[in-house]
Structure formats: C-alpha cells, structure tokens
C-alpha cells in the first residue's frame, strides 16, 4: 500500500515551481494596483469590484453558456462515437482513436480558416448550394458557425477519455445484465453508462475547462462581438497592459470553475 506513495513527490516539487509560484504572482497582481513596488504593497479589492459591472457579468454568462452548450453537444456526439469505436477489435480501436486525434495536429488557426472558407457568404458550401439551385444561406458570424468550430476542435477531448473507460470494460457485466432480463436500453443506461462515468466526467471537465477560456475560434467564426472571458483576460494582459485587472478576472474564473468541478464530482459520488 505504501510503496508507491513517494511517486507523487517529483510532481509536488515540480508543480510548486511551475504552477504555484506563478499562481502566487497572479494573486499578488490581482490584489494590488499598478504602480506598487514590493516595498510598500497596498492590497485592494478594486480589481474584483470592477468585475461586478453588468458588461463583465454579461461576458461571463456568455462564456458559461457557450462552454456548457459545447460540453453538451460534445458529450452526445462524442459518447456515441466512442461507444461505436469501442465495439471494434482492439488494434482497430487504437487506429481509430489516433485518427480522431490527428486533425488536432494541424494548426488550429488553419483549421478555423478552413471553416471560414467553407461557411462564408461566398464560400464553398454556398457555392454548392447555388449549384443545386438553392438559395444561399448566411452562416458566418452566427452561433451556428461558432458551434461547428468549437465542437470540431474539442470533440476529441471528449471521445478519448470516454473511449478509455469503455474500452477495457468487463463484458461479463453486460452479459449478466442480459441474463437478468434487462433489455438493451436498460443495460446501456444501468450498466454501460454507469461504468463509463469516470471517463464521461473526465471528458466533460476537460472540454468545459478548455471551452470556457478559449476565444480564438469564437472570435474568428463569430466576429469580435463574441467577447468571452478568454479575450477579456488576454486583452487586459496584452493590449491594455492592466495585469492587475487581468489577474483578478482569471482568478474569479478559476474559483468559479473549481466550484463547478467540485459540484460535478459530488454528483458522481452520489451516483456511485
């Protein structure tokens, strides 16, 4: 039992340096104002108060909505795909999972540019529609375009963990369920899905974390109107140069997400 306890030590040391120290710096920035020197620090809540303005709350709600919607769509589409992939024989499964990941190795910006050329008003899809004698549809700069880009980018992060937990599932549970008279639907929800919950939870958390802080895809496919937490923070750090406010926003974001994850894990614990 005790043997492997020590294995955590390297990571504790490592994360203390590359995660905790930067985190402390961010906290320092968040609770101070610009122009402070280390000698006479004055702490303030001003940066946090600023966030309470309706415009920033709006931005937060929009990010949250987008994040949750992305998670929901990825979960439905991704679970189905992971489930089907898990039915193949093992070597095929590995190849299929690899093929799910390969598109991600092409630069995200390039993939998004490709979506622009597919979806734009004079784009490929509309050219196809007009060849078929149909009316062109305006798709760029809509929620639809943003969702397409987001789901295409994040789906692998849902599929991979779900597949991991489905792939090594003990088939005897399923047989037992049938033997006990359960129909396929019951078997799926009461046995298969339940056993895959760790993977689902993992995928949900990963996609949620990634999608709530992203902004490049929404900005390119939805236009600059898509102000999200990610671009708000980025612009504070880079173009405005207000690191204090930027740090405060990212800490607010982090705290909210931590609570969300806690809540999700509680749901998981209650389920088991």
């Amino acid at each position, binding site marked *: *039992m*005790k*043997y*492997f306890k020590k*294995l*955590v*030590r*390297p*990571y504790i040391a*490592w*994360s203390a*340096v*590359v*995660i905790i*120290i*930067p*985190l402390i710096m*961010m906290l320092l920035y968040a609770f101070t104002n610009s122009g402070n020197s280390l000698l006479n620090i004055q702490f303030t809540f001003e940066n946090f108060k600023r966030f309470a303005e309706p415009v920033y709350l709006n931005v937060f709600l929009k990010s949250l909505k987008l994040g949750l919607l992305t998670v929901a769509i990825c979960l439905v*589409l991704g679970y189905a*795909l992971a489930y*089907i992939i898990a039915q193949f024989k093992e*070597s095929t499964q*590995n*190849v299929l*999972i*690899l*093929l799910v*990941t*390969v*598109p*991600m*190795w*092409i*630069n995200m910006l*390039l*993939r*998004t*540019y*490709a979506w*622009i*050329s*597919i979806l*734009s008003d*004079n784009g490929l899809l509309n050219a196809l529609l007009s060849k078929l004698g149909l009316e062109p549809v305006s798709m760029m700069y809509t929620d639809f375009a943003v969702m397409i880009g987001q789901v*295409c980018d994040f789906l692998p992060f849902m599929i*991979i963990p779900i*597949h*991991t*937990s489905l792939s*090594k599932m003990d088939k005897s549970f399923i047989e037992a369920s049938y033997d006990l008279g359960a129909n396929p639907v019951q078997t799926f929800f009461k046995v298969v899905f339940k056993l895959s919950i760790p993977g689902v939870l*993992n995928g949900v*958390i*990963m996609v949620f974390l990634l999608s709530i*802080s992203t902004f490049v895809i929404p900005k390119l496919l939805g236009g600059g109107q898509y102000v999200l937490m*990610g671009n708000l923070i*980025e612009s504070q*750090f880079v173009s405005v140069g207000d690191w204090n406010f930027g740090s405060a926003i990212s800490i607010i974001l*982090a705290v909210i*997400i*931590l609570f969300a994850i806690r809540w999700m894990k509680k749901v998981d614990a209650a389920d088991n």
Partner: protein
Amino acid sequence: MKRLAKISMGVYVALCFAFFYLPIFITMIFSFNSSKSLTKFTGFSFKWYQELIENQEIMSAVWVSVSIAILATAISTVLGTITAIGLTRHRKLVKEWILNVNNIPIMNPEIVTAIGLMLLFTAMKIDKGYVTMLLAHISFCTPYVITSVYPKVRSLDNNIANAAMDLGATPWQALRKVIIPMIKPGIYAGVLLAFTMSFDDFVISYFVSGNGVMNISMIVYNMTKRTNPTINALSTIVILVIFIAVAVVNIIPILKRKKVTVNEKNN
C-alpha cells in the same frame, strides 16, 4: 434489425470523420492553389511546396515543434503516470489538493499561464529559448496525462499490486509488470492529448521562447496578416506522413500473416 444497426453505426462513424477531416481536406486543397488566397481557388500549382522547402524559418520551426512535442510528451507521460499511481495511495485531502492544482493549467486561459511562466523564467534568469519552451510544454502537458491516467488507476484493484509483491515481486516489477499494463489505455490517451496540446500550442510558446527559437504555431500566428498556403503545404505533408505511417504499421502485420498462411498452405 442487427444489420440496420450496424449500417447506421457505420454511417455515423463516417459522418463524424467527415466532420473532423473536412477542414483538413480544405487546407490540403488550398496548398495547391496558385494564388495566396485561402478562400478562392484560382488554379493548380506546386509553388507553395517549393517555397516551403526553401523557407529556412519554417523548416527549423518544424524541427522545434516536432522535437519539443516528442520530448515534452515523453517526460510528461512518465511524470504524469507515476504521479497518478502515487496519488491513489494518498489520503483524500492530499489527493484533492493535487488534483485541483493539476487542473489550474488546463483551466487558466493560456495567456495567464504564459505570462506566469514568462515572469518565472525571467526571475530565475534562465535564458529564453529551446529549454524554456520545453519546460513550459512539460508543465502544461503533464496535467492532461494525470487527468487521463488517474481514473484508470483509481478503478484498479489495489490488491493486485499488493498480491504481486506478496508473491515476491519488487515494487518496480509490480509497477512494470502489473500496474502499467492494466492502465495502458489511460497512458495511451494521455500520450495523445499531451502530444496534441504541445504540437498545437501558440500563446505559451510565444511568451516563453526567445533567441529566435520558434515553433510552427508561432509562425502561423504571425502570418495572420498574410496567411499564405506554404503552411497548408506543410500541413498536407504532415497529414500524409501520418497516414502513411499508420497504414504501414497496420498493413505489415497483415501481410506477414498472409505470407505465413501462404507458406503453410504450400507446405
């Protein structure tokens, strides 16, 4: 009924892959475009491939991206896997703390991680370049490995490893021969995610790098003013190489098997 289910499953998989590969396919097509546009195809040409080969900056960026991705993935896979294994042996409180800390790099907007690491490396007086980029990549890849491996370890029966050791295996043997094989799918997932995150990263690499060390993403992002199909040509080559590799790895065993059966028949 069963056939119908099989067919609809096949259709679904095909549709999903079409969705994943549509943008890639478009990217590849435009690598043969004769003009700079990424939206309008004006004619067929190989000139972007020629530019790619002549472009020193891109070629060295390819090397940086690939080598950093491989090294960062290898190191973070080892680090992440042993951490995940060790974690399950700890009390709930320690576990939760480490997992929460572990989530920070995943959930922080990249710019925050980037600025944090930039300040850290500056404070530590490490010369910015290849090494800082590698360290930064390890730091944001490891959490993905831990997140993928940990659930697998958790679902593992602790008694199995203990039994192995009771039967005389050293802890190292138990780890290698018993635990690792059982959590393999999790490690595989971790490797894939870590490699992906490293290969596609821009923001963090940009702020922690220096001295002319650039990866592919940095070049692409700085090209946004005049994105040109040279990068598409590169992507096309990347995709082709991966597909050929996958095909070779999967076809060779099949061919071998065939040969064996043919030989057997002849005998």
